[in-house]
C-alpha cells in the first residue's frame, strides 16, 4: 500500500521502563493495585484523555490512553507523571518515551509479547498486562478502543508464544539446573533431592524441583543453617556426619557449600554409587570453588553440572531467545498492520452512512432555502427542484462511495481522509458487540467488501 497514508488510531502510550529510567524513578512512579482505581479516574479527567489504562510492573510504568487531542493528552499525562515523581517536567522528560497511533499499538503488542522485557520471553508480563486491563475495566476508564487494543494484544502474545520458541528454554541458572536434571530423570515425582550447603541459589533450584514433585533433604556443616533453609523450603534435615548415607538415598544433589576443597570427592561417590547399584545420580554444583571433584563423571551413572555449565546453557538459551525475537518482531509487525486494517474496516460502514447523510442533508437544506424565495412555483416544480438537489448529491456521492467500498483493506486510509475532510463525528470507529467484531474481521482481514 505504498503511497497511501497508513490507517491510524488515536492511541497514545507514555511511560518509563528499564530501558529509560533507573529503578529509583520507576519505584516512585509505580502504582500499587489499591491505588490504581483512584489514579486511573484522576488520569481520565486530564484534558484530551478519553480512555486510559495503566501498566505498573517492577520494570515499567506505562499509561495507555485514547486521546481526543494527542498533544494535549501527552502534555497533561507527562505533567502528571512528573508531579507524581516529584520532579520538574524537564527533569523527567529524558526518561519518558511517548508513542502515538501505530507505534503505540505496536508498543503494546511488543510489551504483551514480552519482546520489550528485560529477559525477553519471560512469561509474567502477559499476566501483568491483563491485570492492567482488568483494573482499568473495573475503574471504568477503558472504552471500546483500548479494550479492543488490549484484547488483540493478548491474542498477538499468545500467537508469538505458539509460533516462536521465544519462551521455550529457561534462562535462569536454577531453572537450567532443573532442566538438566530432567535429561536424566524425566519425571521428578518420587525423586529425592539432597541440598548440601545452604545458599540462595540452592534455595531456588530446590524450590523448583520440589514444585515438580521431588522430596527435599537439607544438610549443612552448621546444623542450624540447614534447619533454617529446611523450614523455608519444607525439607527434611540430615546430619552432615551422615553425608554418605544421605547421598545414597538421593537422586539429585545440589551442592553449594563454602568449602575450599571438594566435599563430594570421587572416593566418596564411588563408595556411595556402589551401594546404589547404578542408579543415576545427578550433581548440581553451584559452589565456587567447586564442591564436586570433576573426575566423578567417570563413575557409572554419575552426572555433574557445575556453575559454568549452568551459565553456559543459560547464555545459549538467551541467545536463542534473541534470535527467536527477530521472528516474533515480524509477527508483531504483521499483526499491527492487520489490526489497524480491521479497525479501518470497522470505520467504513458508519463513515459511508455519515457521508451520505451529510451530503443529502446539505442538498435538501439548500433546496429548502432556495425554494423559500420562490413561493410562486407550483408544487410540481418545487418537487422537481428538490429531486434535482437530491439527484445531484447522490451523483456526487457515487464515486467516493464506490472508492470507499471497493476494498475495505485498501480503503482505510480513504476512510480516515473522508472523516477528516467532511468532519464526520457521528461514526464511532469501534462499535461494541459481537456483530461489529465479526463484520470488521471479515472486512478487514479478508479484504472483502463491507456488507451494508
Amino acid at each position, binding site marked *: 500500500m505504498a503511497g497511501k497514508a497508513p490507517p491510524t488510531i488515536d492511541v497514545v502510550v507514555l511511560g518509563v521502563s528499564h530501558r529509560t529510567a533507573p529503578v529509583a524513578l520507576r519505584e516512585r512512579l509505580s502504582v500499587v493495585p489499591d491505588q490504581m482505581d483512584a489514579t486511573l479516574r484522576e488520569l481520565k479527567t486530564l484534558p484530551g484523555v478519553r480512555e486510559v489504562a495503566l501498566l505498573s510492573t517492577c520494570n515499567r510504568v506505562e499509561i495507555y490512553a485514547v486521546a481526543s487531542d494527542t498533544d494535549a493528552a501527552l502534555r497533561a499525562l507527562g505533567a502528571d507523571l512528573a508531579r507524581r515523581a516529584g520532579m520538574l517536567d524537564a527533569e523527567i522528560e529524558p526518561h519518558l518515551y511517548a508513542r502515538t497511533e501505530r507505534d503505540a499499538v505496536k508498543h503494546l503488542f511488543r510489551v504483551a509479547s514480552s519482546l520489550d522485557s528485560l529477559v525477553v520471553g519471560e512469561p509474567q508480563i502477559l499476566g501483568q498486562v491483563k491485570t492492567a486491563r482488568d483494573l482499568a475495566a473495573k475503574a471504568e476508564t477503558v472504552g471500546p478502543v483500548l479494550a479492543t487494543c488490549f484484547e488483540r494484544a493478548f491474542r498477538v502474545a499468545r500467537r508469538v508464544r505458539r509460533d516462536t520458541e521465544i519462551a521455550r528454554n529457561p534462562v535462569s541458572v536454577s531453572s537450567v539446573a532443573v532442566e538438566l536434571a*530432567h*535429561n536424566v530423570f*524425566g519425571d521428578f515425582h518420587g525423586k529425592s533431592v539432597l541440598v548440601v550447603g545452604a545458599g540462595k541459589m540452592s534455595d531456588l533450584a530446590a524450590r523448583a524441583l520440589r514444585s515438580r514433585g521431588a522430596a527435599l533433604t537439607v544438610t549443612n556443616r552448621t546444623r542450624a543453617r540447614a534447619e533454617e533453609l529446611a523450614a523455608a523450603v519444607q525439607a527434611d534435615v540430615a546430619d552432615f556426619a551422615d553425608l554418605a548415607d544421605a547421598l545414597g538415598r538421593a537422586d539429585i544433589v545440589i551442592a553449594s557449600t563454602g568449602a575450599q576443597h571438594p566435599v563430594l570427592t570421587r572416593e566418596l561417590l564411588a563408595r556411595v554409587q556402589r551401594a546404589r547399584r547404578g542408579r*543415576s545420580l545427578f550433581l548440581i554444583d553451584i559452589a565456587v570453588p567447586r564442591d564436586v571433584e570433576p573426575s566423578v563423571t567417570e563413575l557409572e551413572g554419575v552426572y555433574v553440572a557445575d556453575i559454568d*555449565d549452568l551459565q553456559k546453557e543459560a547464555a545459549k538459551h538467551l541467545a536463542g531467545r534473541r534470535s527467536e525475537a527477530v521472528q516474533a518482531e515480524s509477527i508483531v509487525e504483521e499483526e499491527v498492520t492487520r489490526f489497524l486494517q480491521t479497525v479501518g474496516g470497522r470505520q467504513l460502514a458508519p463513515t459511508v452512512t455519515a457521508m451520505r447523510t451529510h451530503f443529502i442533508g446539505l442538498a435538501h437544506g439548500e433546496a429548502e432555502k432556495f425554494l423559500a424565495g420562490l413561493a410562486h412555483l407550483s408544487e410540481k416544480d418545487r418537487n422537481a427542484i428538490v429531486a434535482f438537489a437530491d439527484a445531484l448529491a447522490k451523483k456526487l456521492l457515487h464515486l467516493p462511495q464506490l472508492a470507499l467500498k471497493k476494498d475495505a483493506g485498501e480503503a482505510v486510509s480513504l476512510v480516515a481522509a473522508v472523516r477528516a475532510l467532511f468532519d464526520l463525528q457521528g461514526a464511532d470507529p469501534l462499535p461494541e458487540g459481537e456483530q461489529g467484531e465479526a463484520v470488521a474481521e471479515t472486512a478487514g482481514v479478508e479484504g472483502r467488501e463491507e456488507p451494508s
Partner: protein
Amino acid sequence: MSTLTALELGAYALASLLYLGFLVGLRDKPGRLALTVAVLLHLGDIGARCVHGMNPISSTPEAMSFISFLLAAGYLLGSLRYGLASAGAFAAPAALALLLLARVVPAEAGAPAMGTLGYTHILLATVGVAVFFIAAVLAVVYLFQDRQLRRKEFARVTDRGTPLDTLDRLAARCVSLGFPIFTVAIVTGAMWIARLGVLHGAAALRPEYVLAVVTWIAFAVLLVARLGGGWRGRRAAWLTLGGFGGTVLVLVVYFLRHAA
C-alpha cells in the same frame, strides 16, 4: 518388486532421512508422519502377501519383513506416549535395512514341514526378536546420551533426547516382555527339531542352537540382574546389546546354512 513394496521402501527411506535430520535440527513431526505412512503401507503389503499364501512366518524373508514391521510399529506406538524422537534415527533405518534385506533375499526352497510346533516356534521367535530389537535401539540411544551427558553436551540431550530413566525403564520392559516369548520360542524350536528327527550327534551342536541358548542365558542374566540385583543404566544397556547381538548372530548363521 511390486509398487507397494517400492512405496513402502521409499517411505521408510524418507522416514529414516527425516529422523536423522531430527538429530541435526529438523522437527520430529515429519519423520513420525513418514514412518506412520511406511508402517501402514507395510501392513497393507503384509496383508496382500498373506492373500497370496506368503504369510509372515512362511519363510525367512517374510519373517524378516514382519520383524521390520513390528519394530517400526512398536517404536511408533512407544513414541506416541514417550518422546522417543531420537530413537527414531535408529529404529527407522533399522526397519528399512531389515525390509530391504527381506526383499532381496530369496525364499528358501524346500522348507521343512512346519506343523503347529514349527509355526509357533517361528512366530514367537519373530516377535521375540522384534521386541529385543526395540530394546536394543533404546539401549543404543541410552549409551549415546549417557556419553553426551558425561561430556557435558547437555543441550543435545535437552533438545533432542529422551530422559535416561525413561529409556532405561522402557528397555527393561521390552526385555521382560521379550524374554518369556523368546523362552517359549526356544523350547518349541527344540521340540520341533526333535519331532523332525534330524537331531543326531553333531547336528545337536549346530552353532545356531548353541548360540540361541547362549543368547537366552544372556537375557536371563540381564533380567535377573535387573529385577533381583537392581542393575540398570549403562551396564544393563551393554548387556541388552550383547544379548541382541547374539540373537542376530543366531539368525545370520541360520540363514547362511539355509542359503548354502
